Protein backbone atom coordinates (compact mmCIF):
# COMPACT_ATOMS: atom_id res chain seq x y z
CA UNK A 1 0.00 0.00 0.00
CA UNK A 2 1.59 3.29 -1.05
CA UNK A 3 0.55 5.20 2.06
CA UNK A 4 3.79 6.73 3.29
CA UNK A 5 4.94 4.84 6.38
CA UNK A 6 7.95 7.14 7.03
CA UNK A 7 5.81 10.29 6.85
CA UNK A 8 3.12 8.72 9.04
CA UNK A 9 5.85 8.07 11.61
CA UNK A 10 7.00 11.70 11.37
CA UNK A 11 3.44 12.90 12.01
CA UNK A 12 3.02 10.50 14.91
CA UNK A 13 6.32 11.55 16.48
CA UNK A 14 5.30 15.21 16.16
CA UNK A 15 1.98 14.51 17.88
CA UNK A 16 3.81 12.78 20.71
CA UNK A 17 6.26 15.65 21.01
CA UNK A 18 3.29 18.00 21.50
CA UNK A 19 2.13 15.93 24.44
CA UNK A 20 -0.94 14.48 22.71
CA UNK A 21 -2.19 11.64 24.90
CA UNK A 22 -5.57 10.89 23.37
CA UNK A 23 -6.28 10.42 19.69
CA UNK A 24 -9.78 9.90 18.37
CA UNK A 25 -9.94 8.61 14.87
CA UNK A 26 -12.13 7.38 12.12
CA UNK A 27 -9.69 5.69 9.79
CA UNK A 28 -9.38 6.02 6.07
CA UNK A 29 -6.70 4.68 3.74
CA UNK A 30 -4.18 7.49 4.25
CA UNK A 31 -4.44 7.20 8.03
CA UNK A 32 -3.92 3.47 8.50
CA UNK A 33 -0.28 3.67 9.62
CA UNK A 34 -1.07 6.46 12.08
CA UNK A 35 -3.84 4.37 13.63
CA UNK A 36 -1.51 1.38 13.94
CA UNK A 37 1.17 3.54 15.57
CA UNK A 38 -1.37 4.82 18.11
CA UNK A 39 -2.65 1.31 18.77
CA UNK A 40 0.84 0.00 19.46
CA UNK A 41 1.69 2.88 21.80
CA UNK A 42 0.80 2.05 25.40
CA UNK A 43 0.96 5.75 26.33
CA UNK A 44 -1.71 6.73 23.80
CA UNK A 45 -5.46 6.50 24.44
CA UNK A 46 -6.84 5.57 21.01
CA UNK A 47 -10.57 6.00 20.50
CA UNK A 48 -11.96 4.46 17.34
CA UNK A 49 -15.09 6.39 16.48
CA UNK A 50 -18.32 5.34 14.82
CA UNK A 51 -18.73 8.86 13.42
CA UNK A 52 -16.30 11.75 13.42
CA UNK A 53 -18.53 14.19 15.33
CA UNK A 54 -18.17 12.00 18.43
CA UNK A 55 -14.49 12.90 18.37
CA UNK A 56 -15.31 16.59 18.87
CA UNK A 57 -17.14 15.66 22.08
CA UNK A 58 -14.37 13.33 23.23
CA UNK A 59 -11.70 15.97 22.63
CA UNK A 60 -13.81 18.54 24.50
CA UNK A 61 -14.11 16.16 27.46
CA UNK A 62 -10.40 15.39 27.36
CA UNK A 63 -9.54 19.11 27.30
CA UNK A 64 -11.77 19.91 30.28
CA UNK A 65 -10.21 16.93 32.08
CA UNK A 66 -6.69 18.20 31.39
CA UNK A 67 -5.56 15.80 28.67
CA UNK A 68 -4.24 16.99 25.33
CA UNK A 69 -5.91 15.34 22.36
CA UNK A 70 -6.27 15.42 18.60
CA UNK A 71 -8.93 14.31 16.15
CA UNK A 72 -7.78 12.41 13.08
CA UNK A 73 -10.18 12.05 10.16
CA UNK A 74 -10.80 12.47 6.47
CA UNK A 75 -12.15 15.71 5.03
CA UNK A 76 -15.55 14.07 4.60
CA UNK A 77 -15.45 13.41 8.34
CA UNK A 78 -14.85 17.11 8.88
CA UNK A 79 -17.95 17.80 6.80
CA UNK A 80 -19.88 15.32 8.95
CA UNK A 81 -18.71 17.01 12.18
CA UNK A 82 -19.68 20.59 11.50
CA UNK A 83 -22.43 21.01 14.09
CA UNK A 84 -20.21 19.58 16.81
CA UNK A 85 -17.39 21.91 15.77
CA UNK A 86 -19.67 24.95 15.82
CA UNK A 87 -21.97 24.14 18.74
CA UNK A 88 -19.39 22.59 21.02
CA UNK A 89 -15.78 23.38 20.09
CA UNK A 90 -16.41 26.96 18.99
CA UNK A 91 -19.27 27.81 21.36
CA UNK A 92 -17.43 26.41 24.39
CA UNK A 93 -13.95 27.59 23.34
CA UNK A 94 -12.28 24.20 23.01
CA UNK A 95 -8.77 24.13 21.44
CA UNK A 96 -9.66 21.31 19.06
CA UNK A 97 -6.68 20.14 17.03
CA UNK A 98 -7.85 18.42 13.84
CA UNK A 99 -5.67 16.47 11.43
CA UNK A 100 -7.66 16.06 8.27
CA UNK A 101 -6.56 13.99 5.30
CA UNK A 102 -7.37 16.09 2.27
CA UNK A 103 -8.78 13.71 -0.29
CA UNK A 104 -10.13 14.83 -3.62
CA UNK A 105 -7.38 17.29 -4.51
CA UNK A 106 -4.88 17.25 -7.40
CA UNK A 107 -3.90 13.68 -8.21
CA UNK A 108 -7.08 12.14 -6.81
CA UNK A 109 -8.14 9.07 -8.77
CA UNK A 110 -11.38 8.27 -6.97
CA UNK A 111 -14.33 10.21 -8.38
CA UNK A 112 -16.27 9.97 -5.09
CA UNK A 113 -13.62 11.97 -3.24
CA UNK A 114 -13.61 14.93 -5.56
CA UNK A 115 -16.68 16.86 -4.36
CA UNK A 116 -15.44 16.88 -0.77
CA UNK A 117 -11.97 17.84 -1.93
CA UNK A 118 -13.41 20.81 -3.74
CA UNK A 119 -15.26 22.29 -0.79
CA UNK A 120 -13.03 21.51 2.22
CA UNK A 121 -11.07 24.75 2.28
CA UNK A 122 -14.19 26.83 1.60
CA UNK A 123 -15.94 25.16 4.53
CA UNK A 124 -12.97 25.81 6.81
CA UNK A 125 -12.96 29.45 5.67
CA UNK A 126 -16.70 29.75 6.29
CA UNK A 127 -16.22 28.30 9.77
CA UNK A 128 -13.34 30.74 10.36
CA UNK A 129 -11.08 27.82 11.26
CA UNK A 130 -7.39 28.58 10.66
CA UNK A 131 -5.64 25.84 8.67
CA UNK A 132 -2.39 24.95 6.98
CA UNK A 133 -1.48 22.14 4.60
CA UNK A 134 1.13 19.59 5.51
CA UNK A 135 2.59 18.75 2.11
CA UNK A 136 6.12 17.67 2.92
CA UNK A 137 7.88 16.03 5.87
CA UNK A 138 9.62 19.31 6.78
CA UNK A 139 6.23 20.94 7.35
CA UNK A 140 5.08 18.45 9.90
CA UNK A 141 6.77 19.23 13.21
CA UNK A 142 6.85 23.05 12.95
CA UNK A 143 3.31 23.42 11.62
CA UNK A 144 1.90 21.00 14.20
CA UNK A 145 3.62 23.02 16.93
CA UNK A 146 2.22 26.24 15.47
CA UNK A 147 -1.27 24.80 15.12
CA UNK A 148 -1.28 23.53 18.68
CA UNK A 149 0.01 26.85 19.99
CA UNK A 150 -2.70 28.78 18.15
CA UNK A 151 -5.45 26.39 19.26
CA UNK A 152 -4.37 26.70 22.90
CA UNK A 153 -3.92 30.47 22.74
CA UNK A 154 -7.21 31.16 20.96
CA UNK A 155 -9.16 28.31 22.59
CA UNK A 156 -10.58 27.50 19.18
CA UNK A 157 -10.38 24.71 16.59
CA UNK A 158 -7.41 24.62 14.23
CA UNK A 159 -6.99 22.26 11.28
CA UNK A 160 -4.03 20.74 9.49
CA UNK A 161 -4.76 19.32 6.07
CA UNK A 162 -2.68 16.26 5.27
CA UNK A 163 -1.81 16.57 1.59
CA UNK A 164 -1.41 13.84 -0.99
CA UNK A 165 2.29 14.53 -1.49
CA UNK A 166 2.90 13.85 2.23
CA UNK A 167 0.65 10.84 2.67
CA UNK A 168 0.71 8.99 -0.64
CA UNK A 169 3.65 7.61 -2.61
CA UNK A 170 2.42 8.00 -6.21
Amino acid at each position, binding site marked *: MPVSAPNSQIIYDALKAL*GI*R*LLSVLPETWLVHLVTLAEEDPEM*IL*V*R*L*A*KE*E*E*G*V*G*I*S*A*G*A*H*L*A*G*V*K*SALLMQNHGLLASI*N*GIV*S*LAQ*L*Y*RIPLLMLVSHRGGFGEEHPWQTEGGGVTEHVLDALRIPYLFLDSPEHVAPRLRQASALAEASLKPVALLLGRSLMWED
Partner: protein
Amino acid sequence: MLRVDALRAIYPELSRCIVVTNMGFAPAELFSLGHQQGFFYLWHSMGLASSVGLGIALSRPELQVVVIDGDGSLLMNLGSLTTLARYQPCNLVHVVFDNEVLLSVGRSFTTATATGTDLAAMAAAAGVPRTATCRTEDELARAFADALAAHELSTLVAKVDPVGPASYFIDLHYLESRFQFQRYLRQLRPAASEGGPD
Protein backbone atom coordinates in the same frame (compact mmCIF):
# COMPACT_ATOMS: atom_id res chain seq x y z
CA MET B 1 -42.41 9.90 37.06
CA LEU B 2 -41.33 13.51 36.61
CA ARG B 3 -37.74 14.00 35.52
CA VAL B 4 -37.13 16.55 38.24
CA ASP B 5 -38.27 14.00 40.86
CA ALA B 6 -36.05 11.37 39.25
CA LEU B 7 -33.11 13.77 39.42
CA ARG B 8 -33.96 14.54 43.05
CA ALA B 9 -33.93 10.81 43.84
CA ILE B 10 -30.33 10.45 42.64
CA TYR B 11 -29.13 13.96 43.57
CA PRO B 12 -27.25 12.95 46.75
CA GLU B 13 -24.99 10.64 44.69
CA LEU B 14 -24.94 12.96 41.65
CA SER B 15 -23.65 15.82 43.78
CA ARG B 16 -20.49 13.80 44.45
CA CYS B 17 -19.93 12.87 40.78
CA ILE B 18 -18.68 14.60 37.66
CA VAL B 19 -21.89 15.21 35.73
CA VAL B 20 -22.28 16.19 32.06
CA THR B 21 -25.82 17.00 30.96
CA ASN B 22 -27.43 17.19 27.54
CA MET B 23 -29.30 20.28 26.35
CA GLY B 24 -32.91 21.18 26.98
CA PHE B 25 -34.85 21.19 30.23
CA ALA B 26 -32.83 18.56 32.14
CA PRO B 27 -29.90 20.91 32.88
CA ALA B 28 -32.32 23.59 34.15
CA GLU B 29 -33.94 21.05 36.45
CA LEU B 30 -30.60 19.77 37.73
CA PHE B 31 -29.43 23.34 38.32
CA SER B 32 -32.65 24.08 40.23
CA LEU B 33 -31.83 21.26 42.64
CA GLY B 34 -28.48 22.86 43.43
CA HIS B 35 -25.43 23.57 41.30
CA GLN B 36 -22.21 21.73 42.09
CA GLN B 37 -18.73 22.49 40.79
CA GLY B 38 -18.65 19.07 39.18
CA PHE B 39 -21.73 19.74 37.03
CA PHE B 40 -21.27 20.75 33.40
CA TYR B 41 -24.29 21.74 31.32
CA LEU B 42 -23.90 21.18 27.61
CA TRP B 43 -26.14 23.69 25.89
CA HIS B 44 -26.62 22.92 22.21
CA SER B 45 -24.22 20.34 20.66
CA MET B 46 -27.21 17.99 20.68
CA GLY B 47 -26.18 14.37 21.07
CA LEU B 48 -22.63 14.96 22.25
CA ALA B 49 -23.05 14.73 26.05
CA SER B 50 -22.18 11.03 26.03
CA SER B 51 -19.08 11.72 23.91
CA VAL B 52 -17.92 14.50 26.26
CA GLY B 53 -18.49 12.15 29.20
CA LEU B 54 -16.47 9.44 27.47
CA GLY B 55 -13.61 11.88 26.87
CA ILE B 56 -13.55 12.78 30.57
CA ALA B 57 -13.92 9.18 31.74
CA LEU B 58 -11.04 7.93 29.56
CA SER B 59 -8.83 10.89 30.45
CA ARG B 60 -9.41 10.67 34.20
CA PRO B 61 -10.15 7.08 35.28
CA GLU B 62 -10.12 8.15 38.95
CA LEU B 63 -13.24 10.32 38.49
CA GLN B 64 -16.78 8.94 38.58
CA VAL B 65 -18.54 10.42 35.56
CA VAL B 66 -22.30 10.56 35.02
CA VAL B 67 -23.86 11.57 31.72
CA ILE B 68 -27.42 12.88 31.81
CA ASP B 69 -28.84 12.25 28.36
CA GLY B 70 -32.25 12.29 26.70
CA ASP B 71 -34.01 10.10 24.18
CA GLY B 72 -33.84 12.72 21.43
CA SER B 73 -30.18 13.45 22.14
CA LEU B 74 -29.13 9.83 22.27
CA LEU B 75 -31.02 9.02 19.07
CA MET B 76 -28.96 11.75 17.41
CA ASN B 77 -25.67 10.06 18.39
CA LEU B 78 -26.55 6.36 18.60
CA GLY B 79 -23.09 5.37 17.44
CA SER B 80 -21.88 6.70 20.78
CA LEU B 81 -23.40 3.65 22.48
CA THR B 82 -21.10 1.43 20.43
CA THR B 83 -18.08 3.60 21.22
CA LEU B 84 -18.92 3.60 24.94
CA ALA B 85 -19.34 -0.18 24.84
CA ARG B 86 -16.10 -0.60 22.91
CA TYR B 87 -13.98 1.18 25.52
CA GLN B 88 -16.22 0.32 28.45
CA PRO B 89 -15.04 2.93 30.94
CA CYS B 90 -15.99 1.49 34.33
CA ASN B 91 -16.24 5.04 35.72
CA LEU B 92 -19.15 6.12 33.55
CA VAL B 93 -22.88 5.83 34.26
CA HIS B 94 -25.14 6.98 31.44
CA VAL B 95 -28.62 8.05 32.56
CA VAL B 96 -31.10 8.57 29.73
CA PHE B 97 -34.32 10.40 30.54
CA ASP B 98 -36.79 9.09 28.00
CA ASN B 99 -39.95 11.20 27.73
CA GLU B 100 -40.67 9.99 24.18
CA VAL B 101 -40.81 13.53 22.79
CA LEU B 102 -38.60 16.42 21.75
CA LEU B 103 -40.08 18.41 24.61
CA SER B 104 -38.32 21.68 23.79
CA VAL B 105 -40.48 22.00 20.69
CA GLY B 106 -43.68 20.61 22.18
CA ARG B 107 -45.28 17.37 23.19
CA SER B 108 -46.53 16.54 19.71
CA PHE B 109 -43.00 15.94 18.38
CA THR B 110 -42.53 12.34 19.44
CA THR B 111 -39.29 10.41 19.11
CA ALA B 112 -39.05 6.78 18.01
CA THR B 113 -39.17 5.61 21.64
CA ALA B 114 -42.87 6.59 21.52
CA THR B 115 -43.41 3.90 18.92
CA GLY B 116 -41.43 1.19 20.62
CA THR B 117 -37.70 1.85 20.22
CA ASP B 118 -36.10 0.46 23.38
CA LEU B 119 -32.95 2.43 24.24
CA ALA B 120 -31.87 0.12 27.09
CA ALA B 121 -32.10 -2.86 24.74
CA MET B 122 -30.12 -0.95 22.13
CA ALA B 123 -27.43 -0.13 24.70
CA ALA B 124 -27.29 -3.80 25.73
CA ALA B 125 -27.07 -4.89 22.11
CA ALA B 126 -24.28 -2.38 21.56
CA GLY B 127 -22.35 -4.11 24.33
CA VAL B 128 -22.97 -1.92 27.37
CA PRO B 129 -22.57 -4.47 30.18
CA ARG B 130 -25.18 -3.11 32.59
CA THR B 131 -28.51 -1.68 31.47
CA ALA B 132 -31.92 -1.10 33.02
CA THR B 133 -35.19 0.64 32.36
CA CYS B 134 -36.63 2.38 35.42
CA ARG B 135 -40.19 3.63 35.83
CA THR B 136 -40.21 4.96 39.39
CA GLU B 137 -37.92 7.14 41.50
CA ASP B 138 -37.15 4.17 43.76
CA GLU B 139 -36.23 1.92 40.83
CA LEU B 140 -33.92 4.58 39.42
CA ALA B 141 -32.32 5.38 42.78
CA ARG B 142 -31.62 1.69 43.35
CA ALA B 143 -30.32 1.04 39.80
CA PHE B 144 -28.12 4.14 40.01
CA ALA B 145 -26.63 3.21 43.37
CA ASP B 146 -26.04 -0.35 42.14
CA ALA B 147 -24.33 0.91 38.97
CA LEU B 148 -21.99 3.14 40.99
CA ALA B 149 -21.22 0.29 43.39
CA ALA B 150 -20.63 -2.17 40.54
CA HIS B 151 -18.14 0.26 38.97
CA GLU B 152 -19.21 -0.82 35.53
CA LEU B 153 -20.30 1.07 32.41
CA SER B 154 -24.07 1.35 32.71
CA THR B 155 -26.91 2.80 30.68
CA LEU B 156 -30.00 3.44 32.79
CA VAL B 157 -33.10 4.52 30.90
CA ALA B 158 -35.58 6.39 33.09
CA LYS B 159 -39.04 6.66 31.57
CA VAL B 160 -40.37 10.11 32.52
CA ASP B 161 -43.42 12.25 31.78
CA PRO B 162 -43.09 14.86 29.03
CA VAL B 163 -43.11 17.76 31.48
CA GLY B 164 -40.43 20.37 32.00
CA PRO B 165 -39.89 23.57 33.95
CA ALA B 166 -41.24 26.91 32.76
CA SER B 167 -37.86 28.06 31.47
CA TYR B 168 -34.43 26.90 30.36
CA PHE B 169 -32.83 29.71 32.30
CA ILE B 170 -29.76 28.91 34.35
CA ASP B 171 -28.03 31.76 36.11
CA LEU B 172 -24.64 30.54 34.99
CA HIS B 173 -23.29 31.50 31.57
CA TYR B 174 -22.13 28.50 29.54
CA LEU B 175 -18.59 29.84 29.36
CA GLU B 176 -18.55 30.52 33.09
CA SER B 177 -19.71 26.95 33.60
CA ARG B 178 -17.06 25.63 31.21
CA PHE B 179 -14.11 27.39 32.89
CA GLN B 180 -15.37 26.69 36.39
CA PHE B 181 -15.75 23.00 35.55
CA GLN B 182 -12.29 22.77 33.98
CA ARG B 183 -10.72 24.47 37.01
CA TYR B 184 -12.53 22.11 39.35
CA LEU B 185 -11.28 19.03 37.44
CA ARG B 186 -7.76 20.48 37.60
CA GLN B 187 -8.04 20.88 41.37
CA LEU B 188 -9.20 17.28 41.71
CA ARG B 189 -6.03 16.00 40.08
CA PRO B 190 -4.24 13.46 42.26
CA ALA B 191 -1.27 15.09 43.98
CA ALA B 192 1.09 12.34 42.79
CA SER B 193 0.71 13.39 39.17
CA GLU B 194 1.05 17.14 39.69
CA GLY B 195 2.33 18.73 36.52
CA GLY B 196 1.67 15.69 34.37
CA PRO B 197 -1.36 14.87 32.26
CA ASP B 198 -2.35 11.88 34.34
